[in-house]
């Protein structure tokens, strides 16, 4: 009996280590950082991401486009209207019949409501508006929408996370589910939890989106990165947010 028990617990251990991360073991990238990087994020006067948040606030109140409308003209004060919004994105968009991330939602609002041109991915203004909106959810738990329409997209995102790809033939899960307690050269691998986007990355010397980070990882495994705005990137983002469900939003996070 003892022998069987040992085999069963050994099998359970194997499946736990090679599977998704249990809720109580989920860790933000923050917890892997050196104390001085943590301090940079914690203090709003030293967190460089706050510069984008401030610019985003100005953009929120600025009338633009043929409609000459500001975000605030429809949504009012972001403190109330945008609270918790980033925590449940990407969300399903009825007109496109697929999920959109926060950046895409902002651009849909610009083109349809404000009648202004869409902002480029990773442009200062798009990052600023996204950071400002996501900042309104800081401290709130990531709460993915339980929208049945999202399910097929979520399933595709999960499949992408598990799929080996690139010349190095690695899946996201090989590192971020199975080896997040280890180091790639000197760097902590982390769990890849998307808790603080857009975030200020010291390596970038600027703010960047989750899409940018995912594209960087894909290039790292020598895969052909999905283009900005590609449905596959949004599906991956959707899976990552559901995987991080319950973790607090940190935007704007600081990372090495």
């Amino acid at each position, binding site marked *: 009996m003892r022998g069987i028990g040992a085999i069963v617990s050994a099998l359970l251990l194997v499946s736990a280590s*090679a599977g998704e991360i249990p809720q109580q073991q989920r860790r933000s990238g923050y917890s892997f950082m050196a104390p001085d990087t943590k301090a940079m994020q914690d203090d709003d006067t030293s967190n460089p991401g706050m510069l984008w948040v401030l610019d985003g606030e100005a953009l929120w109140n600025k009338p633009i486009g043929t409609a000459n409308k500001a975000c605030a003209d429809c949504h009012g004060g972001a403190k109330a209207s945008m609270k918790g919004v980033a925590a449940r994105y990407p969300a399903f968009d009825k007109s496109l019949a697929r999920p959109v991330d926060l950046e895409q939602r902002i651009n849909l609002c610009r083109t349809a409501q404000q009648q202004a041109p869409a902002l480029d991915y990773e442009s200062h203004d798009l990052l600023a508006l996204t950071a400002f909106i996501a900042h309104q959810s800081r401290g709130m738990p990531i709460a993915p929408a339980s929208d049945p329409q999202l399910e097929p997209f979520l399933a595709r995102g999960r499949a992408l996370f598990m*799929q*080996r*790809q*690139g*010349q*190095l*033939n*690695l899946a996201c899960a*090989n*590192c971020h589910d*199975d*080896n997040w307690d*280890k*180091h*790639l*050269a*000197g*760097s902590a*691998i982390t769990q890849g939890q998307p808790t603080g986007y857009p975030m200020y990355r010291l390596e970038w010397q600027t703010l960047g989106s989750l899409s940018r980070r995912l594209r960087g990882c*894909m*290039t790292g495994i*020598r*895969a*052909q*990165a999905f283009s900005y705005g590609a449905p596959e990137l949004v599906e991956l983002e959707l899976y990552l947010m559901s995987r991080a469900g319950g973790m607090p939003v940190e935007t704007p996070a600081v990372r090495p």
Partner: protein
Amino acid sequence: MASRLHPLLLLAIALAPALGATAKAEALAPFTVIGDGIPDSLTGKAGDAAHGRALVLDRASTCILCHSGPFPEIRFQGDLAPNLAGAGNRWSVSQLRLRLVDASRLNPVTIMPSYYRLEGLVRVGQGWRDKPILSAEQIEDIVAYLATLRD
């Protein structure tokens, strides 16, 4: 200028990129797996161990991203995979060669990339398509170096 070129030459120039890609895709040296190793050198020659050491320490070869080893001059080494110290005791040259060429033949769920394999890969980036991670010469140099790592 172009009009003076022979039509067949023009055709050859037009086809060159496609032919080049095919040639690259078929550029892998043939090898034979026997048991859990590849006994014969991919190049027919012994590798250069000193060059192999330099390759192992070069991040572009990717070895030290995951492995550590007896490399006191390298500050950051990975801990995803076994320390390479003593690799020459643990494995024969033949076994080392197969582990570099295609470790997935020994363990289908290994995270070690197959350094000399082109098929069965998904969404390979444009700059890396149809090329093995390491050339036959590089693999032989690294094998020669790893064989010297004896406790």
